[in-house]
């Protein structure tokens, strides 16, 4: 059995970008997991038949947060990964981009991409090395604490960011928005806070309903 080389870890890291290429309900990320793990299996199992057997086993069910899959590959991260990337960093980056756009800057998209990928891609590509070095104890190495701290800080920053964004919408360019706009924005915020108490209907379903009402109001004029 040969030692895994840094070049193997790099290849695995690149392959994690396709972790969800063949996502399905039965095996979820199974194919992507096997595909990403293949360079390590080639190193560990020189015997082709044995390697293919291991590769086939790894096509079974697997699912985790895609970015932290690198760490898992290198070394039960789904929950912290979901909270960090899907529930915190992604909406934070989206709101940052929207703030730039609302302030009239054409760089909103760039701000969104940079703020998200500065953490996402770095963790994708270094995660394999971290997981490989730490092994199964990767969660005890302080990584989980650092990720949890990142979630907390981004949560607070996210609240501040939305406060700034709402203020920018209420007073664009230093001039107060129209009373209609201000009233309906605040109405939307209050309604949204109430709607957030239940997962159904979804925000999009609520928005479609509100859109239909606004169309009715516009066409009754």
């Amino acid at each position, binding site marked *: 059995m040969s030692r895994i080389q840094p070049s193997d870890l790099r290849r695995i890291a690149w392959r994690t970008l396709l972790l969800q290429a063949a996502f399905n309900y039965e095996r979820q990320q199974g*194919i992507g997991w096997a595909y990403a793990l293949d360079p390590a299996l080639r190193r560990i199992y020189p015997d082709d038949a044995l390697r293919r057997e291991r590769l086939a086993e790894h096509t079974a069910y697997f699912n985790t947060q895609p970015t932290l899959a690198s760490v898992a590959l290198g070394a039960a991260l789904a929950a912290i990964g979901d909270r960090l990337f899907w529930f915190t960093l992604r909406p934070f980056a989206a709101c940052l981009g929207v703030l730039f756009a609302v302030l009239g800057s054409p760089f909103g998209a760039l701000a969104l991409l940079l703020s998200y990928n500065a953490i996402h891609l770095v963790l994708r590509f270094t995660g394999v090395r971290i997981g490989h070095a730490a092994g199964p104890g990767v969660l005890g190495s302080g990584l989980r604490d650092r990720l949890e701290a990142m979630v907390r800080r981004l949560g607070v920053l996210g609240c501040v960011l939305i406060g700034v964004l709402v203020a920018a919408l209420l007073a664009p360019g230093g001039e107060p928005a129209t009373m209609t706009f201000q009233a309906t924005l*605040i109405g939307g915020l209050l309604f949204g806070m109430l709607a957030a108490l239940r997962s159904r209907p979804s925000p999009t379903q609520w928005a479609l309903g509100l859109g239909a009402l606004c169309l009715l109001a516009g066409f009754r004029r």
Partner: protein
Amino acid sequence: MNAAPLATAVLGGVAALDAEPVAQTLFSQPLVTATVLGFVWGDWATAFEVGIVLQVLAASTLPVGSRTPEDYATGGVVGVGVALALANHEAFTIAKQGCAMLGVLVGMVVATAGIPLLKWKRRTNEGLARWCEEAVRAGDASAPARAQGAAIVLSFALGVTYTALCLGVGIVLLDRVAAQESLRLAHAWTLARPLWLGLGLAQVLSAFLQRRLTRGVAFGAALVATWMFLMIGGH
């Protein structure tokens, strides 16, 4: 003129790739694709009007539990694309606002209608996964790579086709409506835009707050401080 719709359809395929199969860099987010489409169609104002609203709504769509979230990757491209195509014929700002209203509605409908398509694609990938395991056990170690490639091609093709279809149907059905009802649509837009923004931002804020009073205080303080800065600093 013909290049813009074609480029929009291709962008839909690229966004479909980024959303799930490849890298998930957030290139597929509505604000990013709206920026690209604003360049392609030469109308940044309309693109950003629609892109901002769809982005806020997309940000509020959190993947909770086993629920498949709305497909704002293609929904964003189609919504902005329809708005830009309709606004292309309009000279006045108020008419373009009416097109923006239609664009956001189309974007949300397309995003919602994309859920069964996403589920169908994932079910198709189940067959691919079973084939892959059988092929590997039979001696074909390159099967995972080929399965990944096939899945990527399927995602791209579905994204392009779905975008092109929805873009075409949207433009054909709404062109006359946009031209004849622009005032009413613009009035609806003045009501809907802040409502949608408020709804979406509140959903995201609720996720950040986590029912912690200190975070609520942070939100309030930032809002008041920024508002005062803008109002006082602007005079």
